């Protein structure tokens, strides 16, 4: 049994007064999350529960105040500059909003190819272009659409581009922060199918952040339920979401349509 890929131990973070929401300051505390290789782990919670902050901590987009974060056996706080750079190709993120997360002035091929250029500089231009075409095909877009700009695509297609960009650097871990929430119902199902295909074919390790109980139940192996900055329940996704032990999880499940 190899060491877990992600190990958050007692991680805490608080936001200062400038981020006061409804007269409450926000704190994340006692976060213990383990993600093993090849697992799809869900983080379920409502808005304000802190699930996106956890995503940002795992991807090192934000810092934490206390606790430790061990990635693949090495504490990230002791990272050297070169390790930090390497980390960026190991962990990738797909954001909620496919309109805001792509550079409108870069072509799709540029956006997808940028990471390859940085992290695999040994690849030549033609190899890189071939790689981009292959990625576009893998996420279900026409391979020759690389010359086009993000505004020429629909929301679902842009989310596919964002997924292709994340996969371009061959990450070990993919963090998806509400990747379906801003899409239409029929498109959500399409992108969900894409995730299922990627999980099966690439054996990706995924942290899937969502407020949608049903999606988490369908694709995740394990789940952490968050509420007000804490983890209130964890376990096998199917067990937790059919027989919840925590009172909050129970209420959440009862409310879902």
């Amino acid at each position, binding site marked *: 049994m190899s060491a877990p890929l992600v190990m958050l131990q007692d991680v805490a973070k608080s936001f200062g007064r400038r981020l006061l929401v*409804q007269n409450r300051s926000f704190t994340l505390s006692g976060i213990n999350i383990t993600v093993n290789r090849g697992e799809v782990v869900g983080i379920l919670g*409502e*808005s304000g529960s802190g699930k996106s902050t956890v995503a940002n901590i795992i991807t090192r987009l934000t810092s934490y105040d206390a606790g430790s974060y061990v990635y693949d056996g090495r504490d990230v706080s002791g990272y050297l500059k070169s390790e930090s750079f390497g980390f960026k190709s190991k962990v990738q993120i797909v954001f909620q909003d496919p309109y805001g997360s792509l550079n409108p002035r870069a072509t799709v091929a540029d956006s997808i190819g940028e990471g390859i250029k940085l992290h695999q500089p040994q690849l030549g231009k033609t190899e890189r272009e071939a790689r981009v075409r292959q990625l576009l095909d893998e996420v279900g877009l026409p391979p020759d659409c690389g010359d086009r700009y993000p505004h020429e695509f*629909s929301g*679902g*297609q842009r989310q596919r581009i964002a997924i292709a960009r994340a996969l371009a650097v061959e990450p070990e871990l993919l963090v998806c922060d509400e990747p379906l929430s801003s899409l*239409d*119902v*029929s*498109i*959500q*199902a*399409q992108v*969900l*199918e894409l995730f*299922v295909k990627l999980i099966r074919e690439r054996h990706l390790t995924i942290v899937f952040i969502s*407020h*949608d*109980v*049903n*999606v988490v*139940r*369908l*694709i995740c192996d394990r789940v952490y339920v968050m509420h007000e900055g804490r983890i209130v329940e964890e376990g096998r996704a199917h067990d937790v979401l059919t027989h919840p032990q925590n009172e909050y999880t129970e*209420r*959440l499940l*009862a*409310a*879902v*349509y």
Partner: protein
Amino acid sequence: MTVPLLELRDVTIALRGSNRRMVTGVGLSVSVGEVFGVVGESGSGKTLLTRTVFGLQDDTYLAGGTVNFAGRTLPLDGYMKAARKLLGGEVGFVPQDPYSSLNPTMRVGEQITEALYLAKRMPMNGTATRQAAIDVLGEVGIPEPELAFRQFPDQFSGGMRQRIVFAIALAQDPKLLIADEPTTALDAITQRRVIELMLDRCRTRGMAVILISHNLELLRQSVDRLAVLYGGQLHNIAETAAIGHHTIHPYTEALFDCIPSKGKTLEDIRAIRGEPAGAGFGLKGCAFASRCRYAEPICVESDLPLNSAAQNGFTACLLGRGAPQ
């Protein structure tokens, strides 16, 4: 015997300026006291339809058809003005975003007494008006309504704000409440509470409700009948009990099949290929044809059947799928 409260016949809505038809040939009727749902993806015209019918949309107009409300036919000439007269008295409106629909500089109580003044000519500062406002705040489940009366909107959470918006609508004692995605901005737990409370209070008062949502599962569990819009066309009017039993329009069926609702496995979920059609499809051909698993050439070539004022089980499928036997 059901009495129709709102009746749309062949309603067509066009953009001002370009005259582009965004919604075509919609006919439906909502009875007194009925809870009616409208479902559609973005661009289906669900919001445009109701906003235009009640004169809330500036950039579109009613280009054809008739609208009857409580036995009166609204004139096409000067339609917007006539439709707006219904609002705030006979028709209440709860918009999607409770953060922008309340006036942040006015106390909650004032916003309700203002509604009472405008709709019922009750004096702004009267004791009876104040009591009526406090009563309605209590009715929508605001704890300590006397205190809430003096507070400002920013002192409330999203769910409580949406209750206040609902209280304003309720204070006017309308015959019909239009709720356009009233809980989309809210969390799951709050969402269910607000929807259940809203429908319960409307049913108690005998008010009709039109609940607009993109969430088919929410509507299936909340409303009696629903209209399914796609690409600006009315595709289906179905009793919610029929959904999931394949006696419905192919689009309604496909929409239901792609929702990961409770008890479904990954194998049960079938995505609809392609992209949703935008509004403005006209009546030539079925807007859903390009994505429909049953589509045949006739679906693109023929005109979609119009319905005058839809009865139950109306299905605009050119292949006759989902029509009642």
